[in-house]
């Protein structure tokens, strides 16, 4: 189905050899760049791509390693997106700030030679190109190969994927190693903190007006990481059958699980904490009544530095938490 690349204008200069391994032997002689993407295919080019367009989170991930894209697109207004804070996108062309709408004509003017986004294994699509977006957005894929590491059960794997991609694109290995060292230190600190409080239980929640949603760690990579590193994040017993990312309780049953530490989804914070506070049942959630609450980074981490600072913050919260708040 994939149409011939619209690289024609740029082709002479950039010498892209093709879009996937299967048909790359035609281009032949030299392979300066090669990368195995989340979709399992290996992409190659005769020169290292330099004109990159990336989904904003992916852009942030690459920029941590010094690879700066020329254009980005986002699904939400960039200023308001909690996952896009602390990064300077100035000088980079913004091609869209609403889900499903990418200005592909402007993207074409940028003459990209690589497009980067997360690969979503379940949807079988890269970020921003999935089902339901405008047809024009999907044509972005005709401008250049789309690559990116796959979403998986660990944020660390995802970030490592970006590090690997950045390295093929010429990132300084020392810089990557440096970020990694700082991150490893934060992980060690987090593990030390959880080791100090072996009895501490945590619950990741997202309260709404009429319901109380509990995140299922199995489908939340960062929560799986936390469990890996010694934090006892409670696994809810009966995830919603049609949507197993959450167990949705009626607000009347919000005291079903009693953790020592309550973690609010930070994408909706502090609104969701106010919402819970307005519900009278919150007085029966021990951790909430005792004020032992904080936030967790909900499904958005893409960089070592964000992850490290979240881990450091959480380690502090864990150290000062009362692990015997809830008596069994």
């Amino acid at each position: 189905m994939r149409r011939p690349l619209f690289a024609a204008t740029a082709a002479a200069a950039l010498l892209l050899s093709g879009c996937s391994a299967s048909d790359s032997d035609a281009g032949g002689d030299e392979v300066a760049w090669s990368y195995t993407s989340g979709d399992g295919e290996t992409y190659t080019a005769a020169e290292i791509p330099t004109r990159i367009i990336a989904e904003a989170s992916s852009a942030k991930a690459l920029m941590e390693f010094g690879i700066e894209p020329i254009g980005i697109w986002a699904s939400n207004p960039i200023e308001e997106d909690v996952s896009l804070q602390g990064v300077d996108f100035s000088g980079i062309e913004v091609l869209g700030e609403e889900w499903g709408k990418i200005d592909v004509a402007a993207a074409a003017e940028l003459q990209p030679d690589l497009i980067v986004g997360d690969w979503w294994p379940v949807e079988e699509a890269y970020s921003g190109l999935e089902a339901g977006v405008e047809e024009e957005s999907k044509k972005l894929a005709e401008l250049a190969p789309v690559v990116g590491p796959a979403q998986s059960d660990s944020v660390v794997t995802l970030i490592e994927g970006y590090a690997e991609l950045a390295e093929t694109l010429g990132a300084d290995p020392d810089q990557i190693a440096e970020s990694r060292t700082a991150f490893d230190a934060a992980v060690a600190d987090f593990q030390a903190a959880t080791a100090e409080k072996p009895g501490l239980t945590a619950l990741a929640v997202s309260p709404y007006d009429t319901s109380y949603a509990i995140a299922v760690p199995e489908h939340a990579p960062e929560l799986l990481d936390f469990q890996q590193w010694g934090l006892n994040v409670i696994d809810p017993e009966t995830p919603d059958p049609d949507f197993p990312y959450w167990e949705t309780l009626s607000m009347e049953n919000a005291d079903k699980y009693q953790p020592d530490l309550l973690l609010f989804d930070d994408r909706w914070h502090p609104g969701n904490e106010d919402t819970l506070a307005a519900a009278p049942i919150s007085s029966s959630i021990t951790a909430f009544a005792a004020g032992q609450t904080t936030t967790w980074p909900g499904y958005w981490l893409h960089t070592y530095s964000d992850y490290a600072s979240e881990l450091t913050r959480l380690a502090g919260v864990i150290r000062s938490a009362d692990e015997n708040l809830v008596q069994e």
Partner: protein
Amino acid sequence: MTAVLTVSGQRVLAHRRIRLVAAGLALTAAGLFWLAIAIGGELLPPVEVLTGLTGTGEPSTVFIVRELRLPRAAAALLIGLALGAAGTLFQRVLGNPLASPDFLGVTAGAGTATVTAIVFGASSALLLPTAALAGGALTAMLIYLFAWRRGISAYRFILVGVGVATFAQSITSYLVARAEMRDAREALTWLVGSVGMASPEALTLLAVTMALFIPAAVYASRVLRALELGDATALVLGSRTQRDRVLVLGIGVVLIAVATAAAGPIAFIAMLAGPLARLLLRRAGQSIAAAALMGAVLLQTADLLAQHALPWPVSTGVVTGVFGAPYIAWTLITAARRSDLR
């Protein structure tokens, strides 16, 4: 002068006016089609549009013209035609300006089916249009079944339609409220409706449907003329009214379902096209062709505005809603005679 015109003389004048209006609308639609291809960051000169279309121009222009803009321009044209035709068929069969398929439950039913598919994880390019098609047709059948009682009364049809629409909408709202963020966003985007969502498959289907519709329209306009003489007269003239009504409504359902499948439930075009065309036709009566072309002109204009009027592009449905609503308000306020509303 007018007093001495014979009946046949009036009919000749009416036909001339219909042809004139239709030709004017067709020219406008063609102009808007060209504009949709030419407008972008900067206006492409006509020559570049042409070379872009034929594939002989600059590769980048060819890409922009043929890959990005042509499908969208064609979608706006075809969907507008389908919506305008479907709306006027419904309104005329049921004899009421409120009886457009977007006010009845047909569009809502298509919406519910599609949102169900989205929320339950369907993501194939073919499945969503199929769901919309099935949902729209099924809803129309249900409405007809429930409204049938020794024949179809327009008023009962509208009431049942509103009931079914509410039924469908409450299920849709529930699905959206329960869905996870990503799915909810996809569902809501679809529910607003945008010409840009039309996939190549949906466009092909739409083009085939519109081609088949031309002979159907000739039949429909004959039926409608008979119906509009009043049921009693039509019966006397030997027209099998009920069967004809069902058939014409059926044609309308297919059109609206195919259009909705391609671009979501875009508000107001179906409802507005017929009455607006009628304003242009004055006393010349009604014309399906004029209503369809009016639908195309409206939707093309709306999509141009949606893409270029604001600093950021919005979905077509946002524009048709925002501009359609004040239009109805204006008609209501200025309508000197009640008959203008019918």
